[in-house]
């Protein structure tokens, strides 16, 4: 009697834990992607400054474009790390 109740409780707990872990992983993936806020702000700032620089010195446009692209790609890295964590949480758990 007691044994069967105990077993069913154990089974319920394992099933519940599985669903709980799944849900928490998806929630964590969603939270990890909030890290995209930072690169958005940073890239926008860099693009604004680049536009300012082109307005001040239009003949240097090609060099400013190259520098902006490279610096924006570097600033993007932290957001990409958040994305990697989200992808790992969803697919490769």
């Amino acid at each position: 009697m007691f044994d069967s109740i105990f077993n069913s409780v154990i089974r319920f707990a394992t099933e519940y834990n599985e669903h709980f872990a799944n849900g928490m992983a998806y929630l964590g993936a969603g939270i990890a992607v909030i890290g995209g806020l930072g690169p958005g702000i940073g890239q926008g700032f860099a693009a604004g400054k680049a536009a300012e620089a082109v307005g001040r010195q239009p003949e240097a446009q090609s060099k400013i474009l190259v520098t902006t692209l490279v610096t924006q790609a570097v600033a993007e890295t932290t957001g990409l790390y958040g994305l990697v964590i989200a992808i790992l949480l969803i697919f490769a758990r």
Partner: protein
Amino acid sequence: MQFDLIGPISPAVISTIFIVILLSIIFVIAGIRVKKMDPAKTPKGFMFLMIVIVDFFNKFLSGYITEKRRFNFFAPYLFTILIFLAVANISSLFGMTAPLSNIGVAMSFSILTFIMVRVTEFKFSTLKGKFNSLVGPVKALAPIMVPINLIGEFSTPFSMGLRLFVNLLSGAIITAIFYGLLGLIGGLFAGVALHAMFDIFFGLIQAFVFFMLSTVNLSMASEA
């Protein structure tokens, strides 16, 4: 999507091998024909295209690496990487899996960068200069600065490879989500914009960014 690190040959590796064979055939033919060319005549067709590409690259790179010895050492490697990445990133337009959407291919690029930076340091800088750059300007802070600088030596190539991988993978995932949501008819219309955005635009920008960061890292390593 392929997340196996170890396993049978993945489609990304197959398309990598295919692209390598294709590019080597094209450039070996170009190299053979360049040797037989008459300098007095104007080149035509295929050779004209090759010469324009190489000349444009040389002009662009000489704005960043001015010294002749360094330029001759870096230019072939950087040109190879730029051409391979540009072709590899737009290869999904031709029905192949994008090679960089597999982490194994992307991480091999970071290993390549790491080896190239070490070779550059051995070739262009002395042991004393390397030691000074590791310790930093203030000798008293050496116990703190040496581990940080050593981590920096490894993390720069790692983040470069990871950047390539995640950019291409995010494009592939967003494209797959849109195709799944829109079905066949909607996918036909959305595919034009999606592939133009994620394959051509982002792919070429990532190839260019990897090339520029390699240039910066290599010239920094050679001057340390």
